[in-house]
């Protein structure tokens, strides 16, 4: 029989974050990272799993209370399936519950993207860089992250008209902080793959490996498309709440555009 996270924490199953933290803090004094590395890792895995479970519960409660459609985008695996701790397997961090609250009111993606397009049409990526760095709305960390999938998606959609070059793509990836992990994320990987392939330049337009959707209404499809990642579940370390926050924001943008 395997040991559960609750056994490790010395706690009965609960979704009370405070109790979980208290139990972790208490157990930690017997399994310090410098003195008992193995015990510490097991305890910390159990703690992270328990916190994920608690936020999953909280999210479900909120979802059912609001009867919101957000429940459908619930991407967390069934917690009971992962209740058993198996420390020698590839560990996976519990997924934090998405926070679907809109970050900022009043941001309009349409004009933003239009102006971004003007900068790209100027050719030199430096114009785009300076414009992005000076853009007041981009100082909001939350808005900036929420925009990532939409920026690349809209750019892929308008690639033939804007003809972004490698420098533009590098500038955008640097500015929006697209690193090794985020680059492989299914919400943006198809768009960047398409942009890097420059497929719109080939006249007979052979169907690209990841064809872009016809319009905003197909965004769910883009988000839903999962390119199999190299050899492991892709959920490690992805800021899910940001991606989901982006989805929510896009819903608002789509509504505004109609």
């Amino acid at each position, binding site marked *: 029989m395997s040991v559960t996270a609750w056994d490790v924490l010395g706690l009965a199953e609960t979704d009370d974050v405070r109790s979980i933290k208290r139990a972790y803090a208490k157990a930690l004094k017997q399994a310090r990272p410098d003195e008992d*590395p193995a015990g510490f890792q097991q305890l910390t895995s159990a703690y992270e799993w328990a916190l994920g479970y608690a936020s999953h519960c909280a999210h479900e409660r909120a979802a059912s209370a609001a009867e919101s459609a957000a429940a459908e985008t619930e991407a967390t695996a069934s917690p009971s399936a992962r209740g058993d701790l198996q420390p020698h397997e590839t560990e996976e961090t519990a997924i934090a519950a998405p926070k679907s609250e809109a970050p900022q009111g009043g941001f309009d993606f349409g004009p933003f993207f239009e102006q971004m397009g003007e900068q790209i049409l100027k050719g030199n990526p430096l114009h785009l860089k300076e414009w992005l760095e000076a853009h007041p709305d981009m100082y909001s960390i939350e808005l900036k992250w929420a925009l990532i999938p939409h920026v690349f998606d809209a750019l892929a959609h308008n690639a033939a008209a804007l003809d972004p070059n490698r420098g533009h793509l590098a500038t955008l990836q640097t500015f929006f902080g697209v690193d090794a992990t985020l*680059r492989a994320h299914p919400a943006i990987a198809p768009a960047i793959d398409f942009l890097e392939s420059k497929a719109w330049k080939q006249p007979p337009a052979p169907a690209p490996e990841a064809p872009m959707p016809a319009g905003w209404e197909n965004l769910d499809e883009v988000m839903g498309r999962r390119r199999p990642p190299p050899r492991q579940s892709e959920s490690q370390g992805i800021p899910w709440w*940001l991606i989901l926050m982006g989805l929510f924001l896009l819903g608002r943008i789509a509504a505004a555009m109609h």
Partner: protein
Amino acid sequence: MIVGIDLGTTHSLIGAFLDGKATLFPNPLGDVLTPSAISIDEDGRLLVGRAARDRLISHPDASVASFKRWMGSSRETKLGGRSYRPEDLSALVIRSLLDDAQAVLGTRPTEAVISVPAYFSDAQRRATRRAGELAAVRVDRLINEPTAAAMAYGLGEQLNEAYVLVLDLGGGTFDVSILELFDGVVKVHASAGDNFLGGDDFTQALRDHFLRTHRIRQETLKPAEASLLWLRAEHAKHALSVERSARIQLTLGGRDLSMDIDEAQFESVAAPLLQRLRVPIERAIRDSGVRPANLAEIVMVGGAARMPQLSRMAARLLGRLPLRHVAPDEAIAHGACMAAALKARDVALEEIVLTDVCPHSLGVEVSRDLGNGQRSDGHFDPIIERNRTVPVSRSREYYPVHAQQTKVSLRVFQGENTKVTDNISLGTLEIAVPTGATEDRCVDVRFTYDINGVLQVEATVRKTGIRHELLLMQDDNGLSEAEAKSRMAELASLKVHPRDEQPNIAAIARAERLYAESLGDQRTHIQQMLVQFQAVLGTQDLALVTQHREKLLEALDALAAGAIA
């Protein structure tokens, strides 16, 4: 006794946790801040601290500072006919700090916890440890600077159930960390940073602006002129932290030059640097998953955190105020003392547990299948993602690319870029793989990263069970033990002035610096004061010397104030 050391780009401090609290030890001049500067005088004696910093102006060829920026590189500095690596220079600073500790404690400390920028790479951490060893002190543990500052601040303020964001802008590095404090646990959630962005870069931007304005090329300046311009730029930068404008004024190549700069101009001159502050703040917030609105405190530490531009940028990004400044120069040293006490299991900190993260991603190079038989090489595949709590152990499985392949080269990298060429190579492991069915050819790769920053790479061929192991981030600078010993002996052979004479040496260095910076009558005046002081020193009357030294320093202060105003 384990001491805590903050080995900074600009200043260094030492202290210990005594009677339940962090206590910093003063240097022979009575200051807890010792400038991280080294100079060799005419007799071949070593000067560390303020005297050495003053000698950057009067004796630029025999003095050096800001060498923390070169840690982890093999850059050599020539001083007094000898060549020094960055860790040698740091070792000399540590040695001087240990002298200060010994003067207070009565015994020489044998072990130290040294603080390093959270975003320091492993080569830089290794160099820091080596600096400790060269100074004959054991360094088993390094602590990340923002973690140290947050621990000192959070525990001092008795914060509980609180998220704290620390912005640490030092002389040469910028770190951002997000920590949570609850029930005696100090848990770092994320750290990000820029190892080459600090107060010095803003000074340099001002200096370059001055040179551009007057159409002067940096290479045409004499060493003393370059040092002087640097100090003037630094002074202007400090002035701009509290005033609306500042003036840089000095004589270069016989020309009297001056430049006025106001806040807005400074911001435009420093714009590229200010933009670089955004990256680590955004990354730390994103990695921690903590929303800015849920931060209980935003704490600013490091000397350069005094720049209002940093507060403004942080307030703009995080959408909130206030930002809290805590003894910006001492917070990290206090935290290093606490970390030393934690390591020594001091009873006062019995209930405290500190957990930190590895701020860099660690992984291997892979080849990706693009479909239709095409492959693309050189991709970075992280095994331990950045900002995992350490110690941590993770594994992934890999397969040989080609059916006929009998060997795979596992190349290990650190970094965040999608292509391995943009990341830092840590080493390679060659593994023999069997031929046959795909599942038989699987190699399990496990990365284990401990709290001291040592990465262990284990690769096991699943079918044969053969294990390969690679230990990284240990001392592999190419120095053999014998070479290290002789290096240590060489550094130890550098003579220093007796402790009670050091205030006099520092006073003379100060006077010589002012002499180099001034002209005409003032020079004659300083020269007279120096001659008088030398005469008093000759009497060896301690009370008289002390009295004269104080008068000399007062006079020099007055002169300096007049010269700069």
